[in-house]
């Protein structure tokens, strides 16, 4: 087997998952405020940071989604980038 998935695809998946988890946690905190909130938590960093990560991760996941093809090219191996 040869590597078919771009490194940027892995990066996208990772950021998408992390972003979603953090974003959802941030949304949850809007209705269930923390007992001991960190400094500047009123800015809701979990919401916008999580959303940003999720969007960037989604973009990379889609752009570098493994394409079906007859042969893995050298470019795939190199991560398309």
């Amino acid at each position: 087997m040869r590597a078919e998935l771009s490194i940027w695809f892995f990066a996208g998946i990772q950021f998408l998952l992390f972003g979603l988890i953090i974003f959802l946690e941030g949304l949850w905190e809007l209705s269930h405020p923390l007992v001991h909130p960190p400094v500047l938590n009123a800015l809701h960093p979990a919401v916008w940071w999580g959303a940003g990560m999720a969007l960037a991760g989604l973009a990379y996941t889609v752009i570098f989604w493994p394409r079906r093809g007859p042969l893995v090219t050298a470019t795939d191996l190199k991560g398309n980038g």
Partner: protein
Amino acid sequence: MLLPTARLLTTSAPSLGFLQSTAAQTKTTLASLSGVDILIIAVYFAIVIFIGFYLRGASNTSEEFFMAGREMTAWIAGLSFVSANLGSLELMGWAGSAYQYGILAAHWYWIGAIPAMLFLGIVMMPFYYISKTHSVPGYLHLRYGDGARFVSAISFAFMTVLMSGINMYSMALVMKVVLGWNLNFSIWVSSITVAVYVALGGLRSAIYNEVLQFLLIWLGALLVPILGLIEVGGWTNLKAQMVQRMGSMQYVHLWSGLGHFNTNPMGVHWTGIVFGLGFVISFGYWTTDFLVVQRVLSADNIRSARMAPILGAAFKMAVPFIVILPGLLAISVLPYKLVGEGQAVATGGHSYNEVLPLLLVRYLGPGLLGLGVTALIAGFMSGMAGNVSAFSTVWTYDLYGAFINKKATDRHYVAMGRWSTLVGVLISVGTAYLVQHAASIMDYVQQLFSFFIAPLFGVVILGMLWRRPTRAGGFWGLLVGTTTAISLWWWVHVDPSALRYVALSPDAKDMAENLYRALWTWIVTVVVTVVVSLFTQPRPVKELEGLVYGVVPLPEEHDDHWWQKPIVWAGIVAAGFVLLNIIFW
């Protein structure tokens, strides 16, 4: 700065001793993780392990396993190049240094890295690359013969696994201090994970993970300076608050206080920073330490190999934003003063090196804190994977394959690479437990690296730029240079007042010793190599083709546009470097 994780500590203020002392205390942990945080850490480990298994099939030949098939693009090799150096202990140590010494700590990221990285890309990389060497000891073999290769390989292999173990132990202590995690749990989980993904996927797997870890470190740590700057009201306010709190302008200036040893918090002089750090230590580490050079050797062509360190330099230049700035912010926002290790032990307070964890806890809630902790773990694992993959390569190519079993099959060498990865991890684990019971070993081992860097750089650079150095010259240069480094260190160790002679000033402080020791060591190495070479038979020029500047023309690179040339990008990075130094002068 330029040196990886604990390795950097050989030339810097941060010390891992704080971890020993802090862990010994029975104070409560800084934070506890929520279920969301644990979920993020678990996802990270799952992805890392998956990559190892996924890439197993792409690491069947020695070229694939040890050199990632030489298929990495400039971007991937460049990010990996920086990431292998960006360990979590480096992050925490230099954040602590920034708290202690102010913006002076940024020298280790700028003049202590950028010129050397650009030099590697523009001048040295073509020789490493076209010689098709698998390692830096391999280049020494081609240029100086087996003697220099053996000395270099054995010292590198030995030190790499020791340092890996020390890093592992230090990271486990961080997790104990910050989160209250069990030492054995941290050591075994992290080492088994690294062993699995490096043994399965080789350098390709290490590089893939290093790139992901680099991005993760940025995302996990970037919120701290952003929120910190919001809290203090911007950079101008931060500077004013620092001056007020520390009572000195020198915490916010890079160069203006370096005219004399006693006019800056570090007790250093500009000559030490420029020549000791900026030239010898920096060039020695970034251009001859195989841990980082291996990443660039994996590039898919000579242009990528030249661009990788240049791109790495651009990213390296930005790292102070997530390392140095938090240290400066802590001066302003923390309601208490951080202290040195000894005092932290005595009073139960927090030491300088806890700056980053303290700020993570200060600004990050559930989820984000998990991301921050994952960034620390990722930083640690990238450093360890770098050590282990480099060890495996040097052991297999430069020791086992060169001196023990020269005629094995390619498949045999790949198997040896996988096994040596596992053995390297086990030795690292053993070192971690050894250090746990004999903390002083840590300090000595950290010094050992500094003994080899300057002589190695002296010999490599002479051999690369001048055809006259001989095998005997290289061997004696390395040997006498290393002996000089050890002697100078020992002199100051037994008689601290000797620092005034090594650093040329009675006002010099500890930090200055490493800078000037490296400088003197390099000068001795160069002088010995030159003198011995002039008295011994030079090698025929024909044997030096592809190894020495000027012997044969380097292969032409055909870029379609002027802006694709590496020299153009190096110039842009160099301009940014100069600009930063002027802004923060």
